[in-house]
C-alpha cells in the first residue's frame, strides 16, 4: 500500500483521501441546499430563462450575447486585416461577404468602411460594455454587496431586452440597401448624414443601446447605495463595486447627450433638417438642398461628451476585476485601497471635462485647447495612482500564478503602454503629427484589447467556478494566456511605428499608395498574421469554456463554493446561487473590509467579510479543490 500523502489546506495538513471526502461532502451539502431552495416554486421556462428578472441570469444573458458580439466584432476585423496586409488581393474567405460587397473575393472600399465602423461600434457598445457592466456588473455586484437582487429586477430585464434589439438592429443593418453604417464609429456629419441607409439603422440601434444603458445605470446606482448588506459601508466595498458605481454615473450622465445627438442626426437624415449641415454644401457636383446653417462640430462635441467618459466605462470595470484578482492571488490586502477609490471617483468626475482632446485639430484656439490639454494631463494622474497602487500591491505578496492572475498581471503593463501613449495625444502640439494615425489606434487598442479584454478574461476564469461549480482547465487557460499575449502584441505594437510614420487610420489599402507610409506599411503582414493567430489562440479558451459549461449542466462539479479562498461576499453565496430565489440563505452581515488576507495571528490566510468569529475556519472547503487536484496529479 502506498504511503498516505498529506496536503496542506490553509495551515492544516490533511490526508488526500480525507480531503477528497471533505470536498465531495461540501459539494453534496451545497447541492442539497440548493434543491431545498428550488423546491415548490415552479416557474415557467420563459420566465426563468428568457424574460428572467434574476440578476444572475440576466448577467449570463448579457455575458453570452456580448461574447458572441466580441467574437463577431473580431471577425469583421480579421477580414479587414486581410485587405490591409494584402490590398486588393482576392481571398476565398472574403466571399462570405457576398458578391456585392467583395466581388470575386476582393473587398470593396465601401465594405471596408462598413466593417470598420461596425467593428468599432460592436466592440465598444455591444461587446465590451455589455460584458463588463451588463454581465460582470449584474452577476457580481449584488453578490458582492450582499443584496438579494438588483433594486429593480423588471427594469433589469428591460435593460437586456433593449440591448438585444439594439444589437440585432446593428446586425440587421448589414442587409440594408447600401449595407451597414460606414462613417466610422464616430459617425461624423456631414458624411454620416449623406451616407446610405445603414446609418439610420445605426442611429436607431444606438437609441436602443443608450436606453438600455440608462436603465442599467439607474439600477446599479440604486442597488449599490440602497441594498448594501448590514455593515457594508462604502469603504468596505470591494474595489470592483466602486468601479461599477463610478461607471454607472458615467453612463447615466454622459449617454443622454449622445441620445440627443442621435435624435438630431436622425432628424437631419430623415426629416431633412440641417443641425449638422452648414450652408452651401456641394456633394459630387450637386448643391445640397438643405436649408443649411448647421454646425458639424456640434455633433463632435455631443459625441465626445459621451465617448470620452465611455472609454473610462471600458476601463474602470476592468480595473475592478483586476483589483479583485490581484488581492486574491497575492494573498494580501490591496495597497492604498483608499487612494484607489479616491482616484476612481476623481477619474470619473474628470472624464466629463476632457472630451475635446479628440478635437484639437478642428481649429481650436489657444485658450480652449489649453483648457482641454490641462484637464487631459490631470486625468492621467488618477490612472497613474490606480496603476501604481496595483503594482505596489504585489510587494510582499505570496503570488499564485493561476490563469486569472496571469491575465490580471498582464493587464498592468498592457494598460500601462496604452495609457502612456495617451500622453503625447493629450498634448495638442504633439497630437498634430499623431492625430488620426495608427498611433491613436495603437494607443486605444492597448487599453481596450490587452487591457480590458485581458481583464475580462481574468474575470471569466475567476468567477467561472462561482457560476458553474467547475474550474476552467488551468493548463489550457495558460496556453490561452501565453498565446494571446504574444499575438495581441504582434497586432498592436507595430501600430505605434506606423503612426509615427504618419499612416492615416481608416485607409482601405493600409496606406499602400503613400510614399511616406512605405517602410512601415510592410508590418501589416506581421500584424495580420498575428491577428489570425490570435483567433487561433482563442480556440483553447472556447473549447475549455463550452466543455466546462456542458459538464456543469450535467451537474458534474469540481469546485467548492470558495475555490480561491476569497474574502468578498460573492464567495459567501453557494455555487451558482439559485435563480430567482435570492442570493443568500441568510442575509450576510459584514464585519470588515474587503481584502483581509494574511491577517497576522490567524490560522487561515483569509478572513471573509461576513465571518463573525475570526477563529472559525472559513466555510466551504477553501483551498480543497485545488489541493486535491494537485495531489491527484502528483499521485
Amino acid at each position, binding site marked *: 500500500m502506498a504511503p498516505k500523502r498529506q496536503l496542506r489546506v490553509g495551515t492544516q495538513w490533511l490526508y488526500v483521501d480525507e480531503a477528497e471526502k471533505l470536498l465531495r461532502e461540501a459539494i453534496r451539502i451545497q447541492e442539497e441546499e440548493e434543491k431545498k431552495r428550488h423546491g415548490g416554486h415552479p416557474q415557467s421556462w420563459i420566465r426563468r430563462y428568457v424574460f428572467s428578472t434574476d440578476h444572475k441570469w440576466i448577467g449570463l444573458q448579457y455575458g453570452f450575447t456580448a461574447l458572441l458580439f466580441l467574437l463577431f466584432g473580431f471577425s469583421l476585423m480579421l477580414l479587414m486585416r486581410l485587405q490591409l496586409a494584402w490590398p486588393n488581393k482576392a481571398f476565398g474567405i472574403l466571399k462570405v461577404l457576398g458578391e456585392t460587397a467583395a466581388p470575386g473575393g476582393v473587398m470593396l472600399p465601401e465594405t471596408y468602411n462598413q466593417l470598420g465602423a461596425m467593428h468599432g461600434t460592436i466592440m465598444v457598445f455591444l461587446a465590451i460594455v455589455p460584458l463588463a457592466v451588463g454581465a460582470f456588473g449584474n452577476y457580481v455586484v449584488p453578490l458582492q454587496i450582499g443584496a438579494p437582487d438588483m433594486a429593480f429586477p423588471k427594469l433589469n430585464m428591460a435593460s437586456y431586452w433593449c440591448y438585444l434589439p439594439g444589437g440585432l438592429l446593428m446586425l440587421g443593418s448589414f442587409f440594408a440597401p447600401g449595407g451597414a453604417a460606414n462613417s466610422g464609429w464616430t459617425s461624423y456629419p456631414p458624411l454620416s448624414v449623406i451616407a446610405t441607409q445603414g446609418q439610420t439603422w445605426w442611429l436607431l440601434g444606438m437609441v436602443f443601446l443608450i436606453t438600455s444603458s440608462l436603465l442599467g445605470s439607474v439600477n446599479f446606482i440604486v442597488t449599490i447605495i440602497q441594498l448594501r448588506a448590514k455593515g457594508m459601508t462604502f469603504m468596505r466595498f470591494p474595489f470592483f463595486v466602486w468601479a461599477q458605481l463610478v461607471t454607472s454615473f458615467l453612463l447615466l450622465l454622459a449617454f443622454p447627450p449622445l441620445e440627443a445627438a442621435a435624435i438630431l442626426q436622425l432628424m437631419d437624415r430623415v426629416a431633412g433638417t440641417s443641425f449638422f449641415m452648414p450652408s452651401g454644401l456641394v456633394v459630387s457636383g450637386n448643391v445640397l438642398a438643405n436649408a443649411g446653417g448647421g454646425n458639424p462640430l456640434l455633433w463632435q462635441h455631443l459625441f465626445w461628451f459621451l465617448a470620452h467618459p465611455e472609454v473610462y466605462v471600458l476601463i474602470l470595470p476592468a480595473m475592478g476585476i483586476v483589483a479583485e484578482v490581484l488581492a486574491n492571488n497575492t494573498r494580501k490586502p490591496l495597497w492604498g485601497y483608499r487612494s484607489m477609490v479616491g482616484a476612481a471617483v476623481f477619474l470619473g468626475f474628470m472624464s466629463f471635462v476632457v472630451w475635446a482632446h479628440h478635437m484639437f485639430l478642428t481649429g481650436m484656439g489657444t485658450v480652449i485647447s489649453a483648457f482641454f490639454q490641462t484637464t487631459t494631463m490631470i486625468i492621467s494622474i488618477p490612472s497613474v495612482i490606480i496603476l501604481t497602487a496595483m503594482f505596489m500591491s504585489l510587494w510582499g505578496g505570496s*503570488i499564485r500564478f493561476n490563469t486569472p492572475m496571469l491575465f490580471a498581471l498582464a493587464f498592468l503593463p498592457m494598460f500601462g503602454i496604452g495609457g502612456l501613449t495617451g500622453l503625447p495625444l493629450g*498634448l495638442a502640439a504633439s497630437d498634430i503629427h499623431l492625430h488620426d494615425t495608427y498611433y491613436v489606434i495603437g494607443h486605444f487598442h492597448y487599453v481596450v484589447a490587452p487591457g480590458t479584454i485581458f481583464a475580462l478574461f481574468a474575470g471569466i476564469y475567476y468567477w467561472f467556478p462561482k457560476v458553474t461549480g467547475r474550474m476552467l482547465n488551468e493548463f489550457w487557460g495558460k496556453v490561452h494566456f501565453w498565446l494571446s499575449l504574444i499575438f495581441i502584441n504582434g497586432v498592436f505594437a507595430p501600430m505605434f511605428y506606423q503612426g509615427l510614420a504618419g499612416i492615416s487610420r481608416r485607409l482601405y489599402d493600409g496606406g499602400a499608395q503613400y510614399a511616406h507610409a512605405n517602410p512601415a506599411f510592410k508590418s501589416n503582414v506581421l500584424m495580420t498574421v498575428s491577428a489570425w493567430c490570435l483567433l487561433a489562440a482563442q480556440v483553447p479558451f472556447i473549447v475549455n469554456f463550452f466543455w466546462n459549461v456542458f459538464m456543469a449542466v450535467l451537474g458534474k462539479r469540481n469546485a467548492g463554493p470558495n475555490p480561491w479562498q476569497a474574502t468578498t461576499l460573492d464567495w459567501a453565496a453557494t455555487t451558482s446561487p439559485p435563480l430567482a430565489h435570492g442570493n443568500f440563505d441568510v442575509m450576510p452581515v459584514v464585519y470588515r473590509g474587503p481584502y483581509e488576507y494574511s491577517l497576522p495571528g490567524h490560522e487561515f490566510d483569509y478572513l471573509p467579510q461576513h465571518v463573525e468569529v475570526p477563529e472559525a475556519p472559513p466555510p466551504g472547503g477553501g483551498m480543497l479543490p485545488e489541493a486535491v487536484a494537485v495531489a491527484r496529479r502528483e499521485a
Partner: protein
Amino acid sequence: MKEFLARYMPIDASAHGSKLDDLNAVVHWLMLVLFVGWSLYFLYVLWRFRASRHPKASYAGAQSHISSYAEAGVAIVEVILLVGFSIPLWSKWTTQPPKSSNPLEIRLVAEQFLWNVHYPGADGIFGRTDVKLVSSTNPVGLDYADPGAKDDIVSINQLHLEAGRAVVVRITSKDVIHSFSLPVMRVKQDAIPGMEIPVHFTPVKTSDGATWEIACAQLCGLGHYRMRGQLFVHTRAEFEKWLSTQTPAAAAAGS
C-alpha cells in the same frame, strides 16, 4: 530619443516641426522612464514574491512611499510639458504670421476625394467664390466676373510652395470633413465645411524630386484612402518659374 523617433518618422522639412518633435521626444522620455522603471520593478516582484519562494504574504505590504514621489514626478513633468512646451507651441500654431513677412496665401478646398488648391495669383487677392458657380470645370466656384478672380490659379492635388517663405493655407471643404495632413511638414488640420481655418508653416527644405505627400487623415467616404496629393517645395526662383507657367483658371475656362 528624438533621433530614435526620427528613425520611424518622415523627415521634417518645416521650420516649426523640430519643436514639435522635441516635445514628442520629451514625452516619450517620460513614457520610457516610467515603462522601464515599472517593468523592472514588476519582473523583480514577480520573481521575488512568487508563492513558492514566499509562501506567507505580508499583511502590511509595501511600507515605502517611494511610489508617491514617482506619482508627483509624473505630475511635475506633465506640468512642464504643458506650460513649457505644448501650450506655447499651440499658441504659435494659432497665431498668424505678420503680413510684413509676406506669407504665401493659399486656399485649399477639399472635396470627395481630392484637394483643390487655389492661389490668389499675382494680385494676391482671392476672387469671389460661390457654391452656385461650382461645376466640373470650376471646382471652387470662382466668380470670373470678379476682378480679383482674373489671375487666380486653381490646381488639383498639387501643392507648390516656396522654401523659406511662410505659407498660410486657408482650409475648408465643399462636402464632408477631411483632414489636410502633410507628414513631412508636421502639419495637420481638419478641413471642415462651413469653416475656413488658416494654418501656417514655413517649409525649409526643397523637395528636390522626393515624393512628398498630402494625405487625407479624416474618414471622408469610400475614396478616403486614395485622397492623396503631392507637395512640391521649390527654391524661390523655381517657384516663380512654376507660377509663370500656370494658366489662370479664368483664362483656362475661356472667359
